[in-house]
């Protein structure tokens, strides 16, 4: 009898330890599998739009295609915004309701919220243009590891151009960066990526 009462707690303790270890191992394996490589990137921010402040968190529950550029950019920015617009147009009506485009201008000197708004909406009404003070935009750019650098050219009628990253950040409904869509990603590939993110 005494022998039995000594055994029971040990068996119980062993069982509990084994279960805990297994659970820990499962959690670890699972978390490694589902780890988001872009965990360190991004975060919520608020910038100025033509209709008042806009935050990334306003789009909670939707997939957001976020792009940084400037309106005097003649080629790369229109190309990427046109692609974002084409992706939204390509989705079903139901899917499109869960998707938005966000264009952040890094040309805080030339691009007023009004100007960015008009520019972005030209490519698709669901693309919102935002801007802000140099400090505000810089903070957001740092969050997303976006490089942008003003390059003066006194000999050009433009006065200056801005070197900038040409990556579209695909943000999931939870507000986290889920994929980086490079400049040469096709509309079909982008649409596929958006659908994957919407699926969870």
């Amino acid at each position, binding site marked *: 009898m005494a022998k039995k009462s000594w055994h029971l707690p040990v068996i119980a303790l062993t069982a509990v330890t084994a279960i805990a270890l297994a659970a820990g191992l499962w959690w670890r394996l699972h978390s490694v599998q589902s780890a988001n490589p872009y965990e360190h990137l991004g975060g919520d921010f608020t910038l100025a739009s033509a209709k008042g402040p806009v935050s990334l968190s306003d789009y909670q529950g939707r997939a957001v295609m976020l792009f940084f550029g400037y309106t005097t950019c003649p080629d790369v920015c229109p190309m990427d915004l046109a692609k974002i617009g084409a992706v939204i147009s390509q989705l079903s009506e139901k899917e499109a309701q869960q998707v938005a485009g966000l264009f952040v201008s890094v040309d805080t000197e030339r691009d007023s919220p009004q100007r960015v708004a008009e520019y972005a909406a030209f490519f698709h009404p669901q693309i919102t243009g935002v801007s802000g003070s140099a400090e505000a935009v810089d903070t957001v750019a740092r969050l997303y590891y976006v490089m942008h650098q003003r*390059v003066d*050219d006194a000999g050009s009628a433009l006065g200056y151009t801005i070197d900038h990253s040409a990556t579209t950040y695909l943000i999931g409904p939870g507000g986290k960066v889920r994929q980086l869509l490079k400049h040469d990603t096709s509309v079909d590939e982008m649409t596929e990526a958006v659908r994957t993110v919407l699926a969870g």
Partner: protein
Amino acid sequence: MTKTLFFLLAVVICMSGTPARAGTLEVHAPMVRMVPPSQRVSAAFMVLRNHGMSERSLVAAHSDVADALELHNHIMEDGMMKMRRVDAIAIPGHGQVALKSSGFHIMLIGLTRDLEMGEEVPIELEFADGERLAVDAVVQMAGVGQDHSDHSSHGD
């Protein structure tokens, strides 16, 4: 959407059917990128072909559609897109150069009027030897993979 694109493509093909030619130089499919009404800059793209033996150099472009026309190049460096003004764009003998998206292009700075889809913008190209070549560039939306500028970049 697809219909519109096919229509635009058809328009482009029709319009680029008769390339502008002067001497040994030929210009194919000249286009100007459609921009939002408030936007005061745009870019022109085209394919320049040199049927002659010696290298030719595009050194300037002129048009009353903008205050200034400049030759620019795009350089993709480590994920950064950089745009730089260039003095000339060389077209090798028996060769061609595509002024295309993410590459060489003619910047139209300070548009003097709003562009309209499908309209033809007259542009005069000036070469190093003084020769001038007039082209009519069609105003088009930024291609999303369908325009010639993208096709020609696939082989890069």
